[in-house]
């Protein structure tokens, strides 16, 4: 790469919280900016760039045709494309709407003007284009962002942990939330967030997506041990993972 690598941030349907996590790095952000040439970051910059990008971070999911087209164009202009945050990596909460007829959601929010606001089924980025790196989380975990950034800049791969949040949770010495009578998605969710939510007394909502081979039998056994319903877990999994379901499910 000649000179500093050209880096850009883009957003599709999202809350922009993942990009905001960058501004929250404090003065460490200046170190990051020293290593890259930030050519586009619409949230905080007026600059735009017409060349190609060495790294393109894309936040958000695809929820309309315009976004799909934009994503394909960004892909064409980028050497490495990074899905940035749950909306981009697994569809995130935007996927919840896939569980209903689109027309129902449209008329629920916009009434008789529904046709003014077209929408399509929510998609994660890799369902449409090739994705080189995944940074999971709602929002992203800043330490992991820095790890992936370093990997992407040096051209090495980054492997998202494929073990459960429980692993990190145990390291953090948290008391299991099942022992407190509530359901937690930690046992089936990919680690990498340092069990952020459980450290703060809440349950894991599964925002980083499911491990590749979740132990269903184990999860069912735990649920029955604590007298909790399996329906609870199924419903919780659909908060973040609904977009990854196939159309006919």
């Amino acid at each position, binding site marked *: 790469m000649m000179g500093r690598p050209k880096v850009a941030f883009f957003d599709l349907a999202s809350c922009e919280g993942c990009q905001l996590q960058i501004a929250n790095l*404090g003065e460490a952000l200046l170190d990051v900016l020293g290593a890259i040439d930030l050519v*586009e970051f619409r*949230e905080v910059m007026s600059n735009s760039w017409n060349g190609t990008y060495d790294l393109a971070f894309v936040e958000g999911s695809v929820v*309309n045709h315009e976004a799909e087209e934009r994503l394909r164009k960004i892909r064409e202009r980028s050497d490495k494309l990074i899905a940035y945050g749950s909306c981009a990596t697994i569809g995130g909460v935007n996927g919840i709407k896939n569980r209903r007829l689109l027309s129902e959601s449209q008329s629920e929010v916009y009434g008789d003007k529904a046709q003014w606001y077209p929408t399509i089924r929510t998609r994660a980025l890799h369902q449409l284009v090739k994705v080189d790196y995944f940074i999971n989380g709602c929002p992203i975990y800043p330490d992991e962002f820095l790890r992936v950034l370093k990997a992407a800049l040096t051209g090495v791969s980054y492997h998202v942990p494929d073990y459960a949040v429980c692993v990190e949770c145990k390291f953090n010495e948290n008391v299991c939330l099942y022992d407190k009578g509530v359901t937690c998605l930690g046992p089936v969710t990919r680690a990498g967030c340092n069990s*952020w939510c459980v450290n703060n007394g809440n349950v894991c909502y599964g925002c980083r997506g499911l491990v590749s081979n979740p132990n269903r039998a184990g999860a069912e056994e735990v649920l029955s041990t604590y007298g909790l319903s399996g329906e609870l877990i199924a419903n919780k999994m659909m908060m973040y993972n609904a977009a990854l379901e196939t159309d006919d499910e």
Partner: protein
Amino acid sequence: MMSRNVALNVEFLTRIEGHGHIVVDVVDGVLRKAELKIVEAPRFFEAMLQGRSIFEAQHITSRICGICACSHSLASIQAAEEAIGYVPSTQTVKLRKLLLHVENLDSHLLHIYFLAAPDLLGVQSLMGLMTDHSGVVRRALRMKKACNDICDTLVGRHVHPISAVVGGFTKLPQKRELENIRAILQELIDELDPTVDLIAALTFPDFIRETEYVALCSDDGEYPLLTGDAGSTDGVRRAKEDYRTITNEFLVSHSSAKHARLSRGSYSVGALARFNLNFDKLHPLARTVADKIGLTAPCYNPFLNTAAQLVECAHCAAEALRIVEELIDNGVDQSERVIVGVNENCSIPVRAGSGVGAVEAPRGLLFHHYQVDDRGIIRQANCVIPTGQNLQNIEDDMRKLVPEILEKSEDEITRILEMLVRAYDPCISCSTHFLDVHFIGR
């Protein structure tokens, strides 16, 4: 210049949901069109909430916005608790007020430094100030991180708070943590002085349009942010449950965000609205700041919303410090910690009902409204976002402003209109735009 034609089309991305454009059309010196087009990608939150547990509402709705995630959480929790008939403890309310102060402070700082200052100092971004004003950039990043660090302690993080839930908090701050927050706030208050100097030295466009302002109001002495009725400078005052008669939302074909109007064709919410309605309840430190920058109520210059935000920074920092000191002195009752989940352990009694949350988010009055059944499942949800309430008002401002600046160059007209939109701090304070200005028949 009376016969001038201007067809202006400014395209920029807005942080609310996708694209916004400014479209202005002047023919023979007469304004035909002034629109702020919001071409967002709708996410259908209200529809997504249906069928989910009321205990999940705050988790989902905080994802509406990354900048004001805590405000959405707090409005959502308030609506949820009223719907199921749960009354939070005094300590819980105090901590929620603290959180809201810190969020308003955080968001205002982001807007003042990252958005308004570059505009007013003529650079493309805050980072463009690194060469000549690296102290300003470092201060901005430090202050932003300070707010963030406080939120980390209070609720786990600022973007999508973790421990603020229906019923209270899943984690409560320890004394040592509160002492640390106190130290951070004291430093922040010290850093406000140079921030005030920065804003005081800048020149804001001179524009006046008498406007109806809407914000929370109350009969006690507190500057209302978390509780109160909805009130307006035209003398309207209604309980938050009547929010639909305040916002009177309507759809326009050029915007996928709903517009709002009350006593007139439009109204405004946000820091300036709160300042105009509740000036006499501001903390003395905030009034000092208002004096320094010469801001007085009522103020009808929308560009000065940024100045009102600065005044609120002082108010929120000082009030947050006061609450933290109270908590240190009286201690935090750790036994109030809750473990809620989706209420599998039935720790919170649930009934069918309807509840409205009304909270002053950084950008203005935010409403959440839920109806739940007796199992605590959401049957109906409605959220009215501050930026949506401001859209019609921004257009009305543009209609008055454009004829006043017609003699300026197209670049200058564009810059001023962008500044106007940005002054409202729309929920995506996005600085990107490319522009396509046509002067027809010059």
